[in-house]
């Protein structure tokens, strides 16, 4: 049994991104780092997938973007939650908590 991270469950990445942006506007790299830090590398996410997800969320209107200047003084694209994104985060997070609780309860029952 390896300790390698599994493929992400569908929708997980979106909710993680929304949570990362809840703290305030970030550029894509900061979002990537934020997730790496919080998951201690357990969920290694391919950057390509992250950016696709960011753009998809922008299409859906959950995040908005504009150009700004980064802490390293470079031009960077910043993303921030829209009202719709905040609402999506609330519902998605609730769904996840219920889901995780349910799975945990099942697993507890399985251990003698």
């Amino acid at each position: 049994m390896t300790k390698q991270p599994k493929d992400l469950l569908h929708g997980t990445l979106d909710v993680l991104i929304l949570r990362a942006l809840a703290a305030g506007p970030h550029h894509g790299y900061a979002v990537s780092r934020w997730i790496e830090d919080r998951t201690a590398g357990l969920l290694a996410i391919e950057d390509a997938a992250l950016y696709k997800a960011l753009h998809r969320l922008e299409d859906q209107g959950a995040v908005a973007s504009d150009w700004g200047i980064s802490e390293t003084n470079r031009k960077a694209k910043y993303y921030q939650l829209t009202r719709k994104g905040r609402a999506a985060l609330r519902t998605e997070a609730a769904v996840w908590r219920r889901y995780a609780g349910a799975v945990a309860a099942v697993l507890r029952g399985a251990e003698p």
Partner: protein
Amino acid sequence: MFELPSWRRLFRLPSPTPQSAAADVDSELEFHLQMRVDELVALGTPEAEARREALRRFGDVAAARADLRLQSRSRERRAGWTAWLQDVGRDVLFGLRGLRRRRGFTAVAVVTIGLGIGLTTAVLAVVNRLVLHPLPYPNPDRLATVSLASSETAMQISPNLELLGAWRVPSPDREWVEGHDSEELLLEGDGITELVQTRSVTPGLLPALGARVVRGRGIQPADTTAGATAVALLAYGTWRRRFGGSAEALGATVRLNGQVVTIVGVLNQGFDLTPLDQGARAELWLPLGGPAAEKGTSLRMLVMRKPGVTVETVSGALRASLASAGITSQMLQKFPPTAFEPGAWDDPDRERTLWLLTFAVALVLAIACANVAALLLGQSAARAQEFGVRAALGAGRTRVMRQLLTESLLLGVLGGGAGIAVAWTALWLTRAARPANLLTLDDVALEPGVLLLAFAVTLLVAVLFGAAPAWAASHADAGSALVGRVRRSFDTRFGRSLRGTLVVGQLAASLVLMSGAGLLLRSFIRERNIPLGFEPGGLGWVRVDIPRREVPLEETRRALMDQAAAAVAALPGITQVSVAGDGPMGYGITQGEFLIEGRPLSAQEETVIMPTRSIGPGYFETIGMQLDQGRPPVIGPGTAEMVIDSESARRLWPSGGSVGSRVKLSRGSNRWYTIVGVAPEQRALVSGFTDAPSLFIPAGEWEYGSTLLVRARGADPFQGVSTAVRSVDSRIRIRDLTSAESALDERLAGRRFTMTIVMGFAGLALLLAAVGLYGVVALAVGQRTYEIGVRIALGAAPSAVRGMVLRQGLVRIGLGTGLGLALVAGLGQVLRSALSDLTVWDPVVWSGAGLVLAGAGILACWVPARRASRIDPLIALRGD
């Protein structure tokens, strides 16, 4: 550090180029990789390895890039449109708020546009229905009427049912031939007795013309045999009116001219043959040739040509069909069957009249637009400060123009909405006031096509009246606006001269309309004053119907007629009664020859169609006609006398001697009539028979009169006449009494109607032009308040100030009148061809219209001029 204000979106291009979207994606990814490399390098990884690691962690860079580029491009495009729509929405909201703030201005503009567009729409609806789509049937362009038409004269006679049989054989030229006839019959049932219009039709006609049977059944071939049960279909309106729309109408029986008829069905609403022949609306539909239908005398045929077949071809084919069926006769030689486009039945004046009305209403619309444009120009002068401020805040020229055009479009849409209400009202009024012979006006409705056109006109109009003010306003000068030198800087020479030009154009256009109305009025008066040769005051007539079915014997019929005349003559107030074939304005037709005794036959014309009146004793005294020469004919057995009209008497006897001459009306006849008198010219009443003599022939020569002419005196001269006639015998049926005066009115009703409408348009145009002139002069006074104040302070007399302002208006009135007269003269040719009997060169009308225009114009200038002369210099100099 980071901001995402929504207004930044406004600076985005509406549709981003592919390059900019791609560059955005590239720099985003570039930034990401660089950050990763920086971090790894900071941790001590060598640069090259750090780069490799960054790429590895990213995944497939090329694929991601392509994906993201595509996505971001379409997103940007959507965002651009959203932003644009938001802008438009903001403009609209802003515009609406502005219009609400300037309520007075908005109301005047909306009413003006509404009147212009509404009247235009109403006229277009009429033109659309009566000129462009006159026949609401399937394939109207292939429909043709068939009649037996003389190739030499305009005379047409009705075909008969025998011909119909010969024509209903398969042919490569026609799809179907059907016949119809119309007659007024007496309808009795449920205690109501009334004369109703009926149409008798062949069974195939109704379905062929797209009529639907909404209740019961249609007319079937079995119904047309003489032995069948008499059946009838109800017109939709009659069903509602007489039977309350009840299903019990089916199977009910009514009496039609005494015959019991069973109702078997109801036709769909709106179906009628009126658009085809301008006949009265039918209330009942009967099977042609069936037992209830009276013997038709006005049978008409309809033929549906196959595609591409001309009326000439189908005429030839119809003749050929008769020949191959062995039907030949002298009459068919003289009057060969001929197919006509249905429009050929139409009054040729109607279409021209409608185009004239279209032209008139277009002028009204143009004047209305000019007024709104002038209003908007005045508004933008007043709003100069607002535009100046906006320009100072960075609004571009196009931005201001767009805002103003949006406002004009809003005004246009509001005005268009008002216009639909105006059009609806106008059509309703028209229907209520239409002349009796313009039945098809009842079918005119605001159809979708017309409404669409009205909408297009609205948009066009809005752009037209909005463009100039928008252009002027977009030249607002930010600097002078902010330091308060607004008025002078903004109210450019351009704006002023444009307003002046608009007013001159308006005055000219209203002069054109007034001249047109004046010319129509003159021609109407001329027409009304043509001497008709009889005295209409106190003259009336009653048409008497004695059904042949009930009173078959001719002698009895004549006796009943004479009894009716005697009963009427016995009434108080009645001075004269006479039996005749028709009223003094109606006439019958004699087809024959007019052969003068003693002249060689070969030198005389062959067949002529002669308008003929059957007259009883006392005819000329009763209608009040003075004979030019001679005496009325003596009527009775053993005499054969007649009277002819003065025109043909002069033509046929250039050196006199008509009285006393003898004529016969057919080569084969031996009956010679002595001409005993000459009646006044009949041209005004009997048009289209210029070369034929008008005959006055004793009643009973061919037909006994069916009309009672009555001359009466007193306040209510015809009281009791109808009752007296009815009381003679229960079999006598009469139609309402017609007074000569109402008949004369009806004769000119069409002209009066057109004239009234054009006069209404002219009045409206004058009002609008006067309002326009008032606006311009008043605005000029407002802007010159300071200057006028100075003048008054320096001692200018009020009359001098008044004169100064008035002069300004007078110059425009003069220019407008001059231009208008030039236009009338130029349009004269067009008008002449449009209305044949209109004299365009009419100095009375021209000067009259000019005087009315000048009067209204001076009145419009007088108000601001008086205000100018009362300016208080103290207030004027303190302000501004």
